[in-house]
Structures are given as C-alpha cells and as structure tokens.
C-alpha cells in the first residue's frame, strides 16, 4: 500500500527539525513528554500555588478577559510569525526541484511541512497550556473543563501554525519569482518580527489591556474577530463557573465550534491556495542595475580622502547598501528603538527614562555593529583573499570597513538618540551633547566590533563565531555601561564609557589586524 505523500514529507520535515540531536531522536519523544509532564504536574502548580490568592482576585476581575485575550493573541501571532521568519530566512530552494520532479502535489508539500512541524510545537502548546492550567485548576475546574480548555489551546496553536506555514510558502514562492524578490525575502524575514514586538511591548506596558478594556478603545473590535479571543472567552467562562461545564452552553459550544470551523476552514482554503506555493517558474529575469554614483558616494569618497582607499570604501559601501537585508537591519533597529520609546520608555520617570534610553541605545548600536562590520569577513575567505593578494590590501580593507561602519552606524545612532531624547523635553544643549556622546560611543563600538571580528573571523552568515562575537559585544557593552554609570555617575560615566570602549576597541583592532594578516 502506498503511503500518503504528505506523511512522507512530514516525516522528512521532522527528521530535518530534529537532526541537531539525531542520536537521541528515538528517546526524544519520551524525554520531551516526561519533561513536559513534570512541568505541568509539579513545577507549574508549585510556582503558582504561592500566588494563588493574588491570581484568583485578578482572574475573577474584568481585566482577566482582556489579559486572556492578549496572552492568547500573543501566542497566536508568535506561532504564526515563527514559521514565516524561518522559511523566508532559508534561501535554499534547490531541494524543491528534487521533490517537484517526484509525483507530489503542492497540497502534500504544504500538509507535510505543517504536520512535520507539529510535534515540536506540541511541546510549546503543552508548556503554555500547562502553565495556564496550573493557574486554573485551583479554581475548582472539573476534568471536562480542563480538557476543553486544553482543546482550545491546541486549536489556537494548530490554526496559527497552519496559517504561518501557508503564508510562508506563498510568500516564498511569490518572492522567488524575481531576482529582487529573492533578495527581499531575507529582508522581510527580519522586518516581519517588528509587528510581533509591537504587540508584545504594547501588552507589557498595559496599553493594550487598557484598550481592550475599553479605555481609549481602538483595538477591541478587531480583537474580537480573532480566534484567539473566542478561545479566551471560553476559558474565562470556565474560570468564572468552575464545575459547571454547561453554563451558557450555547456560547461555549459556539466558541469551540468556531475554533474548529476556523481551523478546518483555513486548512481547506490553504489546500486550495497550495498551487500558488511551491512553484519554481520564474516570472522576471530583470536584474538590478548599478546606477552612476550620486551625491552620497561622492560624499563617501570625500570622507575617504579620495585615492585608492576611497575606491575601496565606496566599493564596500556599495556592496553593503545594495543588499536589502542590510537595509532591513537598520530599519529593524530604528523600529525597535521607536517602539521602546512609544510603548515602554515614555511611561518611566524622567531620570530613569534617560538612563535606560542611553543603555538601550548603546546596546542597540552594539547589536547593529555586529551586522554592519561583521561583514568584514562574512562573505567568505575568498573575499578576504582578494585583499590579501593586493599589496597592503588587509590594511586598506580594515580602514575601509571602519569608515563604512561609521557611515552606517553614526546616523542610526544619532536618529535613535533623538527619537528618545526629543520626547523627553530635554534642554537643546543637553540633547545635542547626549546625541554626540551616543554617536561617539557607537563609533567606538564600530572599532571594537571590527577588532573582534578580525580576531575571530566569521566566514559565513551563521557560523558559531558570528553568534559568539555578537554575544561578546553585547556583554562588553552592557558591563561597560553599568560599571561606568556606577563608578563615575551619569555625567562623567558617559565620558568614561566612551574612553573605555575606545580603548578596548583599539586593543582588539590591533590584535585582530595582526591575526587577519597571518591567517591561513
């Protein structure tokens, strides 16, 4: 008997997802189940038993519905977004040709991808459901109510994952039809998480709770349309009427059947749309053309003292700027800073506001530096060897990367600082001084990052060195900030932070330059 193709693809997907620990694949389901059971039965109840009075009061209040809606919405959006991000980041579509040359239908591909991802998401849903149930069971919920609540969680996660897999497949196929689209895919993978952060920040600050409760109500209407809200409504009904599964039976049945209808409806629509995904036929062959150098590159040449160094700087800047993923990282950083200001920082007291803002911006700049100057070796050893072959090439590469890093990072640092400082209504002089200080610290991080990446080169996009260097820079920048602020206070602390980061950066740059000149 022939096995269904979706089952074969699902098994393959599971093997791919678990290949990181393939030796333990056989015992993994048992280990995972045991760990989840231990968490659900012992850890989570122990955690929440301490605060049960507090939670009881809250869960019986009017705010609980909004809270539940927000939590389930965050879960819904997160599980929907993750497969999209993962799929868009994966640029390798070549295995698709092997599969499409076999007798496989697009709907088999879609179902297989979905079902293959489910086991790992089952762990996530168990932990989430277990956490909530540990909160709910002390309220006296009966076993049938508990099981129905678990069903609600399962339906929400399954719906979100299906929609995520479907959107990812269609987006990938659609963007894969043109050269520019393929490039945009990676850029989109990063930016797609921004709305998710907006939701999470908004929820953390309580703005969303206010809105849901009707204070300045602008988003409760659309929220009620979402399946996560129907599930929240069912669970809250159980909490308020523990032991009485039949209370307002119609609404409860309507909620659960609504979720079931949403899941099967979206699967039906998805299967109908699956032909649009997994299509290798290109639509556009037009490639992007290099435009003549404009004012910006003339300015870059001017900054680089003309000559051959200027040509190297302009070349690396062009190579950087013409990749949409790089531009998306800058937008991502500015987006994060704006959201933090909008949702979180603005509600803090004035003094704390500036301190935390400075910390977060300098941290963000360190994060940006990793992506901007991490490129110093990220395009592979071949790229580096082009410079090594030329006389004095490595020095010119390092110089060019420092200038290019500054050209990219300094304006972003200035804009980020102004996003935070202007709304805080600081005196103009203080705003200018703090902005200059942040730009200077960001410059020091450029030097520090280049030094670190020369010392521990990352020759591809996702090697362990890239992650290691990123963590190192973030940790160094965090501790430098804390030490400087504690030891020198806020005013002199910034100057100390600048000098210290510049000092450490210079040492790393010197040692790194030696390393890269001798690497074989």
């Amino acid at each position: 008997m022939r096995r269904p193709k979706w089952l074969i693809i699902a098994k393959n997907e599971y093997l791919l997802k678990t290949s990181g620990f393939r030796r333990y694949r056989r015992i993994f389901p048992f280990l995972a189940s045991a760990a989840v059971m231990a968490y659900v039965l012992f850890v989570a109840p122990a955690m929440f038993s301490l605060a049960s009075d507090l939670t009881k009061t809250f869960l019986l209040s009017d705010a609980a519905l909004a809270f539940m809606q927000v939590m389930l919405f965050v879960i819904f959006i997160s599980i929907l977004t993750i497969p999209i991000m993962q799929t868009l980041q994966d640029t390798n579509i070549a295995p698709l040709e092997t599969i499409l040359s076999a007798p496989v239908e697009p709907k088999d591909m879609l179902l297989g991808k979905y079902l293959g991802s489910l086991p790992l998401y089952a762990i996530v849903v168990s932990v989430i459901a277990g956490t909530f149930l540990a909160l709910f069971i002390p309220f006296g919920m009966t076993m049938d109510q508990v099981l129905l609540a678990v069903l609600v969680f399962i339906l929400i996660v399954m719906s979100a994952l299906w929609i995520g897999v479907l959107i990812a497949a269609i987006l990938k196929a659609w963007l894969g039809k043109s050269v520019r689209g393929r490039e945009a895919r990676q850029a989109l993978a990063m930016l797609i998480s921004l709305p998710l952060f907006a939701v999470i920040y908004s929820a953390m600050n309580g703005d969303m709770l206010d809105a849901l409760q009707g204070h300045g109500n602008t988003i409760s209407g659309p929220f009620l349309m979402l399946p996560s809200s129907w599930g929240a409504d069912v669970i809250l009904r159980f909490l308020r009427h523990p032991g009485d599964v039949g209370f307002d039976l119609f609404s409860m049945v309507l909620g659960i059947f609504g979720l079931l209808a949403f899941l099967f409806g979206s699967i039906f629509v998805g299967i109908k749309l699956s032909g649009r995904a997994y299509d290798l036929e290109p639509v556009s062959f037009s490639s992007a053309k290099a435009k003549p150098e404009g004012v910006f590159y003339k300015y870059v040449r001017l900054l680089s003292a003309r000559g051959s160094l200027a040509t190297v700087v302009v070349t690396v800047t062009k190579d950087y700027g013409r990749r949409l993923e790089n531009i998306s990282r800058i937008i991502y950083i500015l987006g994060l800073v704006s959201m933090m200001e909008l949702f979180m920082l603005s509600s803090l007291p004035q003094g704390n506001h500036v301190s935390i803002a400075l910390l977060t911006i300098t941290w963000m700049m360190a994060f940006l530096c990793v992506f901007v100057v991490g490129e110093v070796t990220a395009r592979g050893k071949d790229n580096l060897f082009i410079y090594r072959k030329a006389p004095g090439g490595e020095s010119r590469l390092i110089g060019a990367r420092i200038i290019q890093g500054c050209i990219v990072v300094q304006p972003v640092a200035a804009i980020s600082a102004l996003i935070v400082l202007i709304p805080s209504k600081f005196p103009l002089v203080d705003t200018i001084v703090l902005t200059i200080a942040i730009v200077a610290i960001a410059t020091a991080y450029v030097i520090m990052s280049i030094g670190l990446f020369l010392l521990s080169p990352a020759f591809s996009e996702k090697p362990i060195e890239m992650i290691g260097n990123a963590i190192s820079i973030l940790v160094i920048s965090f501790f430098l900030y804390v030490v400087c602020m504690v030891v020198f206070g806020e005013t002199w602390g910034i100057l100390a932070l600048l000098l210290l980061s510049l000092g450490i950066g210079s040492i790393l740059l010197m040692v790194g330059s030696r390393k890269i000149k001798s690497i074989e």
Partner: protein
Amino acid sequence: MTSNAPIITVNGISKKFGKRNEITALNNVSFSVNHGEVFGLLGPNGSGKTTLIRILNCIFKPTSGTAIVNGHDLKEKDYVKRSTGLLAENPGLYERLSPREYLEFVGALYDVDKSILSERVDRLLIMFGLSSRGNDLIEGFSKGMKQKVLIAAALIHDPPIIFLDEPTSALDPRASIVVKDLIKDLSTKANKTVFVSSHFLSLLEDVCDRLVIINQGRIVSIGTVKEIIEKTGTIDLEQAFIELTGGKESKDLLAWRDQVEAT
C-alpha cells in the same frame, strides 16, 4: 540495447517566461529519443537546456507543444514523473539528513516498496562508495560526494529514463569516470534511456549515441557526433559546436593593453 522505438517524443515545445511572455526560452523544439539510447543535450549557457529538462520532468509546463514520455503525455504528470529520474543542474539536498535518510525519503516519494527500499539504498550506497558514510550528515560531504548521493537519488525508483543535468560538473576525474561508466552501463546492461546535458564535450562524445545541440531555444543540429561533425564540415565536436552556436569571431584579446604599451 538501443531500439528504434522512441521513448521520448518532443513535439514543437515552446516555453516563454515573463508576465507578457517576453522571454523565449524554447522555440518550437521537436526531436525524439530512442529506447535504451544515451542522448546528449548540448548548448551554450542560457540556451534552454535546463528548461527543456524541467519540462520533460513536469516541473514546468510548456507554453505550447507537447511531449510523450514513456507513452504518457506531459499532462499525465504522475505517470511521467514515475518514468523519470532527475539529477538537477543545481541540485538541492537536505544537508541535515544522512544519505540513507535522504535516499529513503526520495524512494518513498516515488512509492518504492518499503520491503525493498532499504536493500536498494544499501546497494546504491555501496555502488557509489558511500556505505561507510551512510549515516553521516550530508552537510559534511564534499561536492563530489553530494553529487553521488544525488545521482543515487535519481536512480532510487529504478526509472526507465534518467535525466542527468551536468552530472560531472562537481566531480574529480576519477569520480567522473565512474559516472561515465555508470551512464554506459545503465544503457547497455540495464537498458535505461539516459538523457545527459553537459558542457563537457568529452563526456558527451564518449557516452552519447546521439545528441542535439540547441542555441537560443532552437535546435541547430541533431544526430550522432560523427554526423554533426560531417554536417558542419569541422574536425571535432568542439569546432562543430562553435560553428553552430556562434562565437567564431576572432577578437584581439590583448587590445586592452594598448594604453599600457603607449605609456
């Protein structure tokens, strides 16, 4: 053993790409491939070779025209797909799988019976010298070893027709000889039809019973190597290829140095 019965018949296939069909990849291509034949496909970059192979494997649909593959029209996708094995030009592997897992996966996609799949995988791994690495992840393999896994995957369901798009492009000379011998054996001993696309003229000269040369989506010549050379009045396949596809123009390749000489 070659017979005169065609196993692939291509009738006036054209393929256009773009929103307004502005790019013609194939233009009214017709030919046939006989059962058991090793058939070569030769053409410059961008001439439409890969597009043709994708059409004959039902990955792309032709804009017009049709083809019969192993007695099935291209519209009978599943039958055509079961009749063919494909080594793609830019093949993709699931690198986080082992060769054994990958071959079992591809075999299952083609409905190879579970009772024989495992043994077949073992035999293919032995044949390609991969049995000792059968459980290692593919990500650690060299290009040549990956190519061997992909060729094994094209053979896993034992199809009557095998398409090999640039089969030796990533291989060292020794591995290339193995592939060359394999192509010959598939045709002579296993009675398979092998459709090979390659830039390596020596490979095509050695293994092909006949070949077709395409340029800018059109067939410019078809026949045995000897016939093509005779038709073009040249002395070898390389010259015949250049004669048929252009590129005869003799440029002064050192003209760029005039400025240097002047100074």
